[in-house]
């Protein structure tokens, strides 16, 4: 695990990844094991229909809420899932370069014959790999939970929702990494990425109900992650490619800035 920067970064984050993965599996199990209770509750769908629009926007699509996929969409992919993936991604991204710089380990690392681009590529690789571990863990929790609870769950829909959520996590993590690599400031990196995530979430949920702000949904990363309820309707290719484009742009900016700036001592 000490052969290169990629493996060393995975090694450094192994405990954190383990705990987040346990959390992701638990979350998957929790929502799937809880679903039969909601499905079997009489009059629940009617109750949802009577809720004000604002409340419904929090819960999701009232019509599909009592289906397995609709329930997971509302209870996992609308908030908790992206929250877990997003927090992990932002912390991993902000510490990738800026963390090394602020803890004064970057100089010594860069005294070895490694280019800045190579360093960045390996750090990005480790971030994306760790996010994959978490996503797989959540997928295992969901599919395993559905088997344990004895209901059919669309494997294709679930997989696509996990992939879309992975893309959202990658965008937030790479934004944090990019700001960190461009400025060397860990706090700023975390703040910007968390801000993009939080404002994106608010624009896509509550604020979209305000007529004036509704058009602003299109600048929200959450809009491109799950506005078409991926677990129910599959990935919207344009939305997914938009997330990929944002991630690629973040990488390009980090490469451009990191190559040109002075490293902090």
């Amino acid at each position, binding site marked *: 695990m*000490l*052969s*290169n*920067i990629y493996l*060393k970064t995975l090694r*450094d984050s192994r405990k954190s990844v383990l705990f987040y993965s346990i959390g992701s599996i638990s979350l998957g199990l929790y929502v799937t094991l809880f679903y039969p209770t909601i499905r079997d509750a009489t009059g629940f769908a009617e109750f949802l229909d009577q809720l004000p629009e604002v409340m419904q926007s929090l819960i999701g699509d009232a019509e599909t809420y009592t289906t397995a996929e609709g329930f997971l969409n509302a209870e996992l992919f609308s908030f908790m899932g992206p929250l877990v993936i997003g927090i992990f991604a932002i912390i991993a991204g902000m510490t990738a370069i800026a963390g090394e710089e602020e*803890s*004064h*380990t970057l*100089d*010594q*690392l*860069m*005294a*070895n*014959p*490694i*280019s800045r681009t190579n360093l960045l590529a390996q750090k990005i690789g480790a971030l994306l790999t760790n996010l994959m571990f978490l996503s797989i863990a959540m997928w295992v929790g969901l599919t395993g939970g559905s088997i344990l609870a004895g209901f059919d769950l669309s494997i294709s829909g679930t997989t696509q929702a996990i992939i879309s959520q992975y893309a959202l996590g990658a965008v937030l993590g790479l934004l944090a990494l990019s700001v960190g690599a461009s400025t060397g400031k860990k706090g700023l990196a975390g703040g910007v990425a968390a801000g993009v995530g939080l404002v994106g979430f608010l624009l896509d949920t509550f604020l979209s109900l305000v007529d004036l702000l509704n058009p602003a949904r299109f600048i929200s990363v959450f809009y491109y992650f799950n506005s078409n309820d991926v677990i129910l309707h599959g990935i919207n290719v344009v939305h997914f490619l938009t997330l990929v484009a944002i991630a690629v742009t973040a990488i390009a900016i980090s490469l451009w800035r990191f190559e*040109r700036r*002075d*490293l902090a*001592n």
Partner: protein
Amino acid sequence: MTTAICTTGLTKYYGAHRGVLDVNLEIKQGDVFGLLGPNGAGKTTCIRMFLDFIRPTSGTISVLGMDSRADSVEIRKHIGYLPGDFITYEKLTSGELLEYFVNLRGDTLTKAKVLADRFDLDLSRKIGELSRGNRQKIGLVQAFMSNPELLILDEPTTGLDPLLQQEFHKLVLEEAKAGKTLFVSSHVLSEVEVICDRVGIIREGALITVEEVAALRERALTHVAIEFENPVSPSDFETVEGVTEVVVTEHKMSCNVTGSIDSLIKAVAKHTVHKIESAHPGLEEVFLAFYNDDDTEKEDYYAE
């Protein structure tokens, strides 16, 4: 002979703050060069530009015949670097850190193990648990372990006890004998004096002078105290070449001598001498002369 480090017009500003100004430096391969100056003078700024951690505002740097920026990865294959305060991954053990850096360099641990034994470094302990001195030992080992052509050592003996400092000096002299180039920055003047052939003095970002250590020592002040059998007069010594600060009390005389003390000895020989004491000339005196607050005196000194 190829130049190990060559800078022309090297200038670095951090925003409006001065880093270094118009530094022109040429260090030949095989040199043991000391860069001497107080904290904040610009020593570390120079070093971090050599390693391409920071980029010059203007001027050029060539290291081992290559461009410091375009060829930085190739350059770092041939450099061993030790910073003033060796800060690294505290959760790794010393052995794991050396293994990691050896892997990044595509090297083997053979020399690292020899050096770890030599500096009595426990490879099994976590770096975070080590004292500053022990951390600095890891720094020394990792700097020397890949058999680099050029060693850049920034305040290398910080935190090392006197015995280990001696061991470090021996190691430096061995590497120098093997033809390696060493660039050592320090504000510990006696250290530079022991290990370096040439010294550059840097102050407020400007390289004031570069001289052979021997030449600097020749220009250094020697404090001499002499006890005579009979009373002497100050006028017997005040006109002697290089002698200043003559103080006579009956049959005792003390003075400072710049450069050779030969003229003084000849003047003293006219009297019967009981005892002569002279303080070993150190670079401190030269250093103090360069850093004297009296600018006129300093300018006169540079003009010599």
